[in-house]
């Protein structure tokens, strides 16, 4: 029997706009879950998803994707990855899996809320496929690192890290709880699908896919290509919603949501993507600098998509452009310095050749961040590794939950705010602005430093802090990815002798 073309039945099949008889419209779609946007009931059915697919087509495509990813993994399973790739790449994998794998499962929950609470049938339909996508991503990114766990417990953070109180995990959880888990369907589609997924996941999944292949890790390259092909589809859930908001007088709220999500995403990706791209990937395997990826994927493409919708660049655009040059270098210094708090061993990435590359890509690096590395390197040349690890904690931003960093001699500063008798610290003007948009949403949260000072971490010393973070519990903490071998390039012949 011949099948109808999808276009002949799709609109009818997904138009599940029933008129409730036993409950009111407000009970069926309560504001907390569905949103309180002032959009007329009849407008919701005009949501037109740009990517249409049937369940039959979806299952067929996904089966092929899974077969591709799993077959590459199976073919390469006997390869001892650690003997084939640079230790910096292993650290990139651990960072990625610890920060991403379980979040994908939570993203499935987010999409499932669209399936139930979205007012538009098209969005509910897209949400159904998005939910299945995210479950697949969680499965893949839990299964792929699992083979490494017996010989390297740090890979277990893929599964157990998100339940820990590690500072990096707290930062990720704070972000995703805010953007993904605790908002209504409309807001979430703008924050997560539009701002986060159309903008920033490209960086992680396309950028790192190239780097993975260059680094010789074809399993991971195939894995994240497979994931990105789903992201490219369900990321589009937010775009028609944005258009609908703008058409119905909600442009100001839409702009504010984009501005909040864009900045929060940027701060997260400075660590998740910025550091690996510019410091962990071996120099001769780098596809480009983080800044170059940012300029291609964000500055150009994301701004185009904003302007196509009639939205403006975020108000802090100039701050953001300056940050692309600077911010992740401070976070690299911080993560490497506090490496015992991590579930992976960061690569320093500051040998003489790497520094030349950094100076070329980021003019002025040697006179700013390089000055701090000079002091570290001098300690390492003397063999004083202990003097390269601070005996205190960094001050953590009450919004991004990552250390408050800046460019040495130029921009390192606090952006404080007193609210209800408590002093909050922020790493930037936009971080503080986000807090001010909805203080009660954020005020009760404590950073790892707040918890230490509140007596929640015992004993209140570095040992107690590490244990609280899961270090020595879930796995050992981090060291230097290359076991300081890179320092030898700085030893002159007399030193070496």
């Amino acid at each position, binding site marked *: 029997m011949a099948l109808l073309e999808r276009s002949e039945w799709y609109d009818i099949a997904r138009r599940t706009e029933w008129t409730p008889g036993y409950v009111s419209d407000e009970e069926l779609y309560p504001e907390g879950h569905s949103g309180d946007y002032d959009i007329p009931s009849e407008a919701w059915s005009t949501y037109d998803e740009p990517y249409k697919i049937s369940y039959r087509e979806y299952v067929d495509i996904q089966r092929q994707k899974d077969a591709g990813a799993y077959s590459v993994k199976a073919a390469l399973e006997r390869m001892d990855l650690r003997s084939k790739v640079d230790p910096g790449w292993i650290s990139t994998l651990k960072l990625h899996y610890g920060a991403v794998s379980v979040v994908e499962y939570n993203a499935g929950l987010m999409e499932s809320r669209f399936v139930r609470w979205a007012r538009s049938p098209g969005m509910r339909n897209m949400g159904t496929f998005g939910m299945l996508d995210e479950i697949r991503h969680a499965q893949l990114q839990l299964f792929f690192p699992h083979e490494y766990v017996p010989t390297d417990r740090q890979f277990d953070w893929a599964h157990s890290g998100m339940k820990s109180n590690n500072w990096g995990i707290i930062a990720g959880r704070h972000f995703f709880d805010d953007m993904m888990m605790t908002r209504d369907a409309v807001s979430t589609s703008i924050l997560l699908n539009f701002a986060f997924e159309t903008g920033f996941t490209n960086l992680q999944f396309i950028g790192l896919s190239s780097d993975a292949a260059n680094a010789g890790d074809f399993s991971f390259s195939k894995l994240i290509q497979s994931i990105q092909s789903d992201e490219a589809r369900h990321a589009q859930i937010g775009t028609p919603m944005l258009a609908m908001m703008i058409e119905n007088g909600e442009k100001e709220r839409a702009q504010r949501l984009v501005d909040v999500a864009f900045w929060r995403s940027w701060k997260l990706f400075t660590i998740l993507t910025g550091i690996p791209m510019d410091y962990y990937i071996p120099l001769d395997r780098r596809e480009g600098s983080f800044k170059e990826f940012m300029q291609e994927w964000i500055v150009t493409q994301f701004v185009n998509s904003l302007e196509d919708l009639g939205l403006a660049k975020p108000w802090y655009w100039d701050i953001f452009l300056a940050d692309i040059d600077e911010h992740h270098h401070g976070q690299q210094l911080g993560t490497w310095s506090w490496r015992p708090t991590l579930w992976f061993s960061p690569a320093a990435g500051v040998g003489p050749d790497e520094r030349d590359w950094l100076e070329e890509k980021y003019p002025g690096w040697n006179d700013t*961040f390089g000055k701090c590395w000079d002091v*570290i390197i001098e300690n390492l040349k003397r063999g004083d590794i202990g003097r390269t690890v601070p005996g205190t904690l960094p001050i953590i931003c009450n919004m991004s939950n990552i250390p408050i960093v800046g460019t040495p001699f130029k921009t390192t500063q606090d952006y404080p705010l*007193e609210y209800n008798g408590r002093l909050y610290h922020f790493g930037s003007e936009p971080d503080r602005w986000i807090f001010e948009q909805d203080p009660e949403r954020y005020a009760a949260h404590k950073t790892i430093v707040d918890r230490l000072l509140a007596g929640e971490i015992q004993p209140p010393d570095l040992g107690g802090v590490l244990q609280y973070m899961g270090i020595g519990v879930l796995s050992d903490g981090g060291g230097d990815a290359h076991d300081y071998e890179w320092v030898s390039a700085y030893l002159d012949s007399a030193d070496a002798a």
Partner: protein
Amino acid sequence: MAAFPLAVNFYGDFVLKLLVVDTEHTMAQVAEAATENVIGLHVAGEGGVIRARRSGETEPLPLDMTVAEAGLAPTETLDFYYEEAS
């Protein structure tokens, strides 16, 4: 006498750092304590007198002023700098 947390923003450093001092410590003592996790760890250090000022202000706090006398809020950020480098 009580433990008192401050945030240290030392000129030339890349990050703000937690410092716990005593309310009776003078600014000179606080400055000395602030160097522990900065000088020779992330900042080379120039030598000379280190001054502290409230974040965003231009005038330093007197060297003999105590933490209690300064009326600082817990975790308030102090900017530290070598007097010559200001």
